[in-house]
């Protein structure tokens, strides 16, 4: 694949990658590595999966799409906006329960969410954010949802859920492991409790940069990228 790309003037090339916001940190790093290797520029657009899907349908100049959930890719494949043969699973996301230790609440298991001193639990909106849906599924499987639903605050996405916790307005929240930094206090949620957060990548059919796109989707599965993805807490399939 390396070779095919070399025929083109690489400096002029820009690859546009649209990705769900939970990938921000991991993808920015992978992008850097990719740029070093291929000498072209990668431009990321991070946003909510739903917004990005709409933008691709309506002709956004995007070459590669990395949503947080499989459903959206399938929808785009049905519409002919993503090339079916390029659909590829490259990582599996994990969710965590994050707590704000400044508030003196100790959460050692999901069970503790029932405690009275916990008044607000932030999760991304399960109606459109895949990580929020996984959070809701986990709480349901754990038999907690009905007991704590009244404490749940929906945020726009996983980053905002984390902000609610970081600013101390929600004592706990469920967010993506990939967003967690060293100084945070978190608890990994058992992946058996929710449907797998399959991270799929695909190439946009109206892209006129499909060669380079292919190079990127291949690169995401390369050992170099796997290291980064693992570093940010993704499981590799």
């Amino acid at each position, binding site marked *: 694949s390396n070779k095919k790309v070399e025929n083109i003037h690489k400096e002029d090339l820009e690859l546009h990658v649209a990705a769900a916001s939970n990938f921000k940190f991991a993808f920015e790093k992978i992008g850097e590595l990719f740029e070093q290797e291929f000498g072209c520029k990668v431009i990321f657009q991070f946003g909510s999966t739903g917004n990005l899907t709409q933008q691709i349908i309506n002709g956004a100049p995007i070459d590669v799409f990395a949503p947080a959930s499989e459903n959206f890719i399938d929808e785009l494949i049905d519409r002919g906006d993503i090339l079916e043969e390029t659909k590829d699973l490259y990582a599996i996301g994990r969710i965590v329960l994050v707590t704000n230790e400044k508030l003196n609440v100790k959460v050692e298991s999901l069970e503790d969410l029932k405690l009275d001193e916990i008044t607000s639990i932030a999760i991304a*909106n399960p109606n*459109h954010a895949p990580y929020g849906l996984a959070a809701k599924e986990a709480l349901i499987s754990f038999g907690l949802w009905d007991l704590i639903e009244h404490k749940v*605050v*929906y945020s726009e996405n996983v980053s905002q859920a984390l*902000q*609610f916790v970081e600013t101390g307005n929600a004592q706990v929240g469920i967010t993506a492991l990939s967003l967690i930094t060293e100084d945070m206090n978190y608890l990994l949620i058992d992946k058996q409790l929710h449907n797998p957060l399959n991270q799929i990548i695909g190439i946009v059919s109206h892209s006129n940069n499909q060669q380079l796109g292919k190079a990127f989707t291949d690169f995401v599965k390369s050992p170099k990228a796997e290291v980064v993805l693992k570093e940010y807490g993704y499981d590799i399939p």
Partner: protein
Amino acid sequence: MNWSPMYLSIKVASYSTLFTAIIGILIGWVLAKCKFYGKSVFSALVTLPMVLPPTVLGYYLLITIGRQSFIGKILIERLNINLIFTWKAAVIASIIVSLPLMIRSVQSSIESVDTTLEDVARTLGKSELSIFFRITLPLAWKGIVGGIVLAFARSMGEFGATLMVAGNIPGKTQTLSIAIYDAVQGGKYEQANFLVLLISSITIIALLFINKINMERKG
């Protein structure tokens, strides 16, 4: 169909418009009538809430009145008032985003009131307060109503800052515009269209109503 977002939106927009109108008339009057050092900078400053993306404004608001903040601690610990993630926070967010609109409208309409009328009222022995209420305000009425209309519409549509400080709690803080956003994000376009029609109808009815009151008032 769950109507609570609709009631909530109307409630939040009504409270917010009321407070915005009062504060906006006050500040607008100060900007129109008082001379003080740094006035033009102050006048530009009050416009600033408009230039920040509402979500960002919401973030700053969250760290200003949130639980961990100085103000938040006083509110919670001393006064036992919890704002964050309640509809009251949505009102505060709405006030902040719509205030610049109100202030500008009030300021320019007060500036265009003929000052000789205010002078005559002075010679008739009236206090500045009574001149304000009986001469300036009625004569600036058109612009003030224009400001109220803008403030109401803006707070019906407020979403970014609200989401940040009030959260999105169905039945408690999920306003119509947050519900619309949710529907669009979730790909439920029919529901979104329906809610858009709903919010548009409510707004049009409210504006026609404001307009009607305004007409009757004039004679």
